[in-house]
């Protein structure tokens, strides 16, 4: 199986992602520069976290127009797997590969702390490493993670089981209005969503930063194991 990690100017969590993917699959991913116009031969494309183009204007906006995103779009249309984390999620919504948008955190401050996520369903490669309803810990590090979409879009996402992860507390309690749980103020506590074919996934927190026992724990590892399994690694 071949994975690639896209690097935009300002991307800064690509090394974290290399580490996680290598731990999960035993294979080092390929690095893709944003000006490449092809992702041929890959099975999974990852858009990692960071501040692509400084996050100036809007997070992810300028990256969404990089040459490589045309290739990623075509790749996704053909059923390729795409994972976007944090800035990667913002780029996927800006590219309209995923619905909705990510606004400034409700508290107007950058949030860097652990949150808990609830796995809403295990019928995607990105969630198959857990059981439905599982709760896991993940670090957040973002200023614009406040997920929003029109009410009918939100209804559809829920109806089609395309909410991948929701913010919750350590006991799995979800509470949209509790700023200690849904810290960035996301609509319906949504932390991660899936595309219609469930092969494109975006989420704000960083499971890749908890994949190594020596560095904080392995709570995030099932995400990567699940992807590998789905692709037969």
């Amino acid at each position, binding site marked *: 199986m071949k994975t690639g990690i896209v690097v935009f*100017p*300002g991307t*800064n*969590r690509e*090394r*974290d992602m290399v*580490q*996680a993917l290598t731990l999960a699959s035993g294979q080092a991913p390929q690095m893709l520069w944003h000006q490449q116009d092809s992702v041929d031969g890959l099975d999974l494309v990852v858009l990692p*976290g*960071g*501040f692509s*183009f*400084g*996050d*100036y204007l809007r997070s992810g906006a300028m990256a969404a127009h990089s040459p490589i995103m045309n290739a990623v779009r075509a790749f996704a249309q053909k059923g390729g797997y795409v994972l976007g984390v944090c800035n990667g999620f913002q780029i996927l919504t800006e590219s309209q590969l995923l619905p909705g948008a990510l606004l400034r955190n409700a*508290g*107007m*401050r*950058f*949030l*860097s*702390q652990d949150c808990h996520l609830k796995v809403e369903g295990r019928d995607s490669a990105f969630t198959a490493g857990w059981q439905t309803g599982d709760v896991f810990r993940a*670090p957040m*590090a973002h*200023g614009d993670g406040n997920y929003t979409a029109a009410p009918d879009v939100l209804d559809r996402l829920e109806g089609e089981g395309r909410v991948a992860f929701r913010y919750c507390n350590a006991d799995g309690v979800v509470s949209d209005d509790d700023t200690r749980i849904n810290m960035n103020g996301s609509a319906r506590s949504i932390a991660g969503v899936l595309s219609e074919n469930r092969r494109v996934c975006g989420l704000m927190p*960083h499971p*890749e*930063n908890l994949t*190594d026992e*020596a*560095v*904080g724990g392995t709570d995030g590892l099932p995400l990567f194991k699940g992807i590998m399994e789905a692709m037969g690694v």
Partner: protein
Amino acid sequence: MTTAAVDIDLARSFGLKDDEYEKVLSIMGRTPSLTELGIFSVMWSEHCSYKSSRLHLKTLPTKAPWVIHGPGENAGVVDIGEGLAAVFKMESHNHPSFIEPYQGAATGVGGILRDVFTMGARPIANLNALRFGAPDNADTKRVVDGVVRGIGGYGNCVGVPTVGGEVNFHRSYNGNPLVNAMTVGLAQQDRIFLSAAAGVGNPVVYVGSKTGRDGIHGATMSSAEFDAESSSKRPTVQVGDPFTEKLLIEACLELMATDAVVAIQDMGAAGLTSSAVEMASKGGIGIDLELDHVPQREANMQAYEMMLSESQERMLMVLRPDRTEAARKIFEKWELDFAIVGHLTDSGRITVRHKGQVEADIPLGPLADEAPIYDRPTEPYDVPAPLTTPADPVGIEGALRTLLASSDIASRAWIWNQYDSTVGGQTVQRPGGADSAIVRVEGTKRGLAMTTDCTPRYGQADPYVGGAQAVAEVWRNLTATGAKPLAMTDNLNFGSPENPRIMAQFVQAVKGIGDAGRALDFPVVSGNVSLYNETRGEDGQATAIQPAPVIGGVGVFEDVAQSIGLAMPEEGELLLVGETRGELGQSLWLREVCGREEGAPPRVDFAEERRNGDFVRGQIQQGAVDACHDLADGGLLVALAEMVMASGNGCKLQTAPHGMAEHAYWFGEDQARYVVVTRQADAFMAQADAAGVPVRRLGHAGGETLQLADDISLTAQQLRDLHESFFPHLMGAE
């Protein structure tokens, strides 16, 4: 601007003293041009020349077998094994952070990052030491908000985790906060880059952002005290562009992996002037600059402005001529400006040309060597007498509650939750988890421990102890995680050196740092001096800050898996290592509970410090210790409460020993002490006895409360509620 007549009045307004201007005249043999005067004034400013501090800094210990480069380079370089080196330094951005807290702090972070990656190191961690005015001062909230956002805004964007730091509040910082930023980088020992230029004819290359009229005279400004007029003298505030900095890091490191770079220097204070002068004079060579080629952001920039601009995110390099085009390609890929702005000569002079005119032509030798050095007078300092233990007005529980909620002890989570501490994927201990932050060395089992510390109230009372204690505490914080302390950087923040009392503070603090460093085998490898931290009140009186000789330290683990944190485990016996005399002079208990800032600070005994620390580290490295916390602000009981809050596990404590006031035992700030939690208490005690290290049994880990006696029992949540209330309250409900 070019029309301003150069004379002694102009020289004074540039910050030069009359005799300094005389010296300029004699070096030049004529009246200098405006640009030349500008170059002299910034090169001879306190900030660039260290004219008041240099004599004293020379006394610091700077050598050890593991030191690769000590002071004199952009950052210190230390051997951490496996052919790798830690590269680190601390830098202040105090005055700009009062004027514009966000940009001041942000550009401070940008500047220290450049000092580290200039040397070929990838920055792997940032720390910051912050000192703000009294919580009830009108400016404090604005400054805290801007500084914290600025540090986060810059560090988060460049993708360097901010893993540690410290914060104090005191009224002496009301008009003059301290923002000291430290960066730690990682390099290969055989790929360290220095700034000495070499090779007559080699091109001088400018990379990064374009030059604007930012911060002209920032270097002289940061050496001038604040007064009512300073707002009108404000240079254009420098705005940081962390995105460009990120590109600059990647482009420079990519270039440094080739053999193109002969020398490289960031453009920090005094921009193009200091970088060009330093590179050429360190290389004993001359330099010709053609300013027409400098990438410019604004129209009609004068030579004077370009030479003094402090626009951010710029670097100057000397390249091998045959590699220049390959280098250009790298910077084009990263979409950064790249321009050949001059070349090296054998003239021994800096020559600046603009639009066909020679705007400056100065002999480098005298510019560097004849920079003024002052042995400034000092006035003997009265050190207060030790305090007789005062009566306890509130009881143990009341004092604990007060201390946990007080400004200097309260949880800093509100701050560090705005800093990305995990980016990079190597952060083993985030803020709050251990006495030092711990970052794994990518691709190895090794780790680095890092911390910053200073206790200004001790130094206010006794500057020598202030310097020595800061070093001891840093060394202890590294030790408490199991790391081997390697070296330190310092950031010496003081008032005006022209005041003999302040100069005495400075001299004594440096002496304390030096003595501690020698005794602990903990050399100084880099540092920074920030003077004139004073505010002039309406009555015209200058009030100096509490002196802050801030120390940043780095230690190493051969196997980072052996490191430990401070969180209370579920079980184990609690032991107190070190002798307790119950010293309450200058303690937080005295200040917060009794409202008194009095007495002598706690004694710092280097032999005791070293003996206890070496023993504790040895035990940690053997795997005998499950958690460890050093004792500092607030003393024993505060340390225990911090351990309980970190995990939620409680502990049950024995009563205080007889023969000492209870509050002096629980809240005294005696140095050289640690709390350890171990499941091998008997063996630990026996070995301590053999090593001559005093150890006392404190009680046991377990349960859900911090339990002192039957009537004092606080749950972790109760403790946290007290601890976590200060910042949200200060910053207002959000």
